[in-house]
């Protein structure tokens, strides 16, 4: 194992985060905080509680998940796309590093950023809304698992993308709508039965449900199913990445 290479890629990517602190950390924290201000402090008290949880507190797991998913994808996709864009990918391709080491470096850094971001949003939410975390260890595990899985997904997008537009298109056009419709702002039990069934095809439902369970002990689907679905998606991403390195898809001529 080329530990020095993993460390070099990881440090390089983390350095980019600290260089762009406003964009990487402050911006998503501030924009998510606005939801807490509006739905938590301002109109949250006027809305009904769900499953015995105040509305402001109910939306916290979903909003953290929204940021976690989009930022994980964005961090990892940008990380691998930039060397392709500038041409400095030659160095990675000619170095004595295995695909696993490359993925550990890029995905590890992207996931670390997302976890830091998730914890910061969680801490910021405390300023506006009262909430509890019933299972903190599970909460952190869900945070890490989701960050890693969607960073893997972001890595795939970064390899696939051949322009900046493609980098944005999946997070903006797919992930954000799926998160909004995946129970961030409501329980899927509030939907008519037909829509409940349709919603279960949305993979983000399982992530939000499991994460919310770790906070309040209530979930739309069983927590075991949530964990299982996340692992299935992670496995799918790992398989695609294995294929990318095997074939050299969009990395090698």
């Amino acid at each position, binding site marked *: 194992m*080329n530990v020095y290479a993993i460390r*070099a890629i990881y440090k390089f990517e983390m350095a*980019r985060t600290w260089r762009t602190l406003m964009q990487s950390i402050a911006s998503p924290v501030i924009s998510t905080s606005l939801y807490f201000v509006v739905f938590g402090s301002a109109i949250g008290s006027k809305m009904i509680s769900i499953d015995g949880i105040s509305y402001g507190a109910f939306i916290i797991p979903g909003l953290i998940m929204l940021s976690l998913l989009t930022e994980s994808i964005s961090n990892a996709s940008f990380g691998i796309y930039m060397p392709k864009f500038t041409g*400095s990918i030659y*160095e*990675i391709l*000619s170095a*004595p590093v295995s695909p696993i080491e490359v993925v550990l470096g890029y995905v590890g850094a992207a996931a670390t950023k997302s976890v830091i971001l998730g914890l910061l949003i969680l801490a910021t939410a405390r300023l506006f809304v009262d909430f509890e975390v019933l299972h903190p260890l599970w909460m952190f595990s869900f945070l890490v698992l989701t960050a890693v899985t969607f960073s893997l997904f972001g890595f795939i997008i970064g390899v696939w993308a051949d322009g900046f537009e493609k980098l944005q298109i999946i997070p903006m056009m797919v992930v954000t709508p799926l998160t909004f419709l995946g129970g961030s702002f409501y329980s899927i039990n509030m939907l008519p039965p037909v829509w409940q069934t349709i919603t279960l095809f949305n993979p983000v439902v399982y992530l939000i449900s499991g994460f919310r369970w770790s906070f309040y002990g209530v979930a739309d689907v069983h927590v075991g199913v949530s964990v299982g679905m996340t692992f299935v998606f992670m496995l799918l991403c790992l398989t695609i990445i294995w294929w990318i390195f095997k074939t050299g898809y969009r990395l090698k001529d």
Partner: protein
Amino acid sequence: MDPIISVKNLNKVYSSGFQALKDVSVDIHRGEIFALLGPNGAGKTTLISTICGITSPTSGQIQADGVDIIRDYRVARKLIGLVPQELTTDAFESVWATTNFSRGLFGKAPDPAYIEKILKSLSLWDKKDNRIMELSGGMKRRVLIAKALSHEPKILFLDEPTAGVDVELRREMWELVRKLRDDGVTIILTTHYIEEAEEMADRIGVISKGRIILVEEKATLMDQLGKKQLTLHLQQPMRSIPTELSGYALELLGDGQTLVYTFDVHASETGIGEILRKLNELGVDFKDLKSTQSSLEEIFVGLVRSAAQQKEEVTV
């Protein structure tokens, strides 16, 4: 002596169907400076990229210091440093950070003293905290060299190392390359500047349309293929070459006042004495004469043209 790089029957066909390398076989000797010459699109960069692992070969075998570059890629790649043709660097990183990044990437433990030595030798030390985007093109080229040397490679590929740099910097780079060779590093460079190959190379390989058409010691190449020319500047212009001299490879140039004789330096009789005697008999006076040897550029152009002609003949 066993070669430090051995390429055998290498072929590269891109997904578009274009065959960039055709049955390439070449050995690079340990400790030499090998210049790979060829016109644009000849396959120079593809060959380098394939040896370095950036491009996958379609068939053939490559060994670096006796190890297969695919099967034992970790061992092989640690031996190799690459300076690419394009100025491909991260814009926002500092010189210090990017050089240390490269060292780590190639599996070496951090060694600030060594990186300092490299940066000083490349006159980059006072720029170590500068972001790469703040540097000039020549300085960026030096950064790429520093990155390539950061893991102490035994083999260094320089793909068009002096493209776009000024004459002074080019001379400095030549000196650096010689020093690296003196330190035991094997250098393989591609260049468009024949002058560069002539100045630095121990051996020269010529690639054209994906095929290696010649590999030779530079001195031997110049001896074997180099032709000398005797140029006579005449007192009075001449309308045509006199029939008495028609058996010689003479050309009348310009306004008829320059007579050029091309001869083989290795021939037992160059014919110079005979020509001068006949000119004297014909009453042709000349005010100046000089002899010149073919440059590597002329040899190179001749080789590529000859390879193209041979191919045309085969096709017909």
